[in-house]
């Protein structure tokens, strides 16, 4: 991925701010020595890992992006609950009704962070687990394979999260 110099500094600044926020949340108070230690360590890490991914890397700080972010987390928690109840239902059934398999799906997302979030979200939603990712192709292990067809599986597994992540990360 080719990036301009300014966007690289922007990533570094965002990573620094994220680290600093976490550090202050962890410490829970604002004092001179805590601020100094936090600044120095955050700065060093931000400079060393500027090519890495962090929570807000490539995030679009636009109103639409932020609203999509909130809606994404609402949807995410709903799916997380659903997946746990679905799993409990399978595990508690004496016949253990599963028909597992690994299916291939395709994503429209381009950004690295968007794809990472998509893979993570899929893992935490009902009956699906991301096993491998190659470019735009994701290989998903399903507890119950509904359809081995790529288009149908994509619509079923990927589309829900993709619509939000597309606005957030692109």
């Amino acid at each position, binding site marked *: 991925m080719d990036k301009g110099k300014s966007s690289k500094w922007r990533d570094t600044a965002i990573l620094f701010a994220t680290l600093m926020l*976490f550090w202050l*949340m*962890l410490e*829970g108070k604002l004092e001179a020595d805590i601020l100094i230690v936090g600044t120095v360590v955050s700065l060093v890490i931000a400079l060393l890992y500027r090519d890495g991914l962090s*929570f807000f890397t490539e995030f679009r700080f636009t109103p639409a992006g932020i609203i999509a972010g909130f809606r994404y987390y609402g949807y995410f928690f709903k799916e*997380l*609950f659903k*997946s*746990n109840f679905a*799993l*409990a239902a*399978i*595990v*508690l059934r004496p016949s*253990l009704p*599963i*028909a*597992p*398999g*690994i*299916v*291939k799906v395709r994503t429209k997302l381009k950004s690295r962070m968007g794809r990472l979030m998509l*893979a*993570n*979200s899929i*893992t*935490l939603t009902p*009956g*699906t*687990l*991301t*096993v*491998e990712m190659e470019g735009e192709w994701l*290989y998903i*292990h399903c*507890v119950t*394979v509904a359809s*081995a067809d790529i288009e149908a599986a994509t619509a079923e597994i990927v589309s829900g999260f993709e619509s939000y992540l597309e606005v957030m990360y692109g």
Partner: protein
Amino acid sequence: MGLILDMIGGLLLVSGASFLLFGGLGLVRMPDIFNRIQAGAKTTTLGTLLTLAGAACLQPAWGLKLLLIGVFLIFTNPVSAQVLANAAHRRGTQKTPLTKVDHLAEDRGDKS
């Protein structure tokens, strides 16, 4: 107010623990490693999150730190599950005979 918060906290702790129990049951009952990872990854995420939320209700002063733990959990738990599943698949770990399709093995053109 304190009593209500205590009750909510207790309820959250119990429901979190129940999901962890189902996850454990899933680990025992599921037939192969991929299905076991599925059981483990989902239930530990929600189970631990509910437990953390319950603890936050009982000890509001810890709220911020517990929230931070929850955030890290949401991001790291699925990653570890994916890495384990990927490693198992690369190694050609035995899949349950119930398995219907495996596009990944087909695309790699290898043993199944």
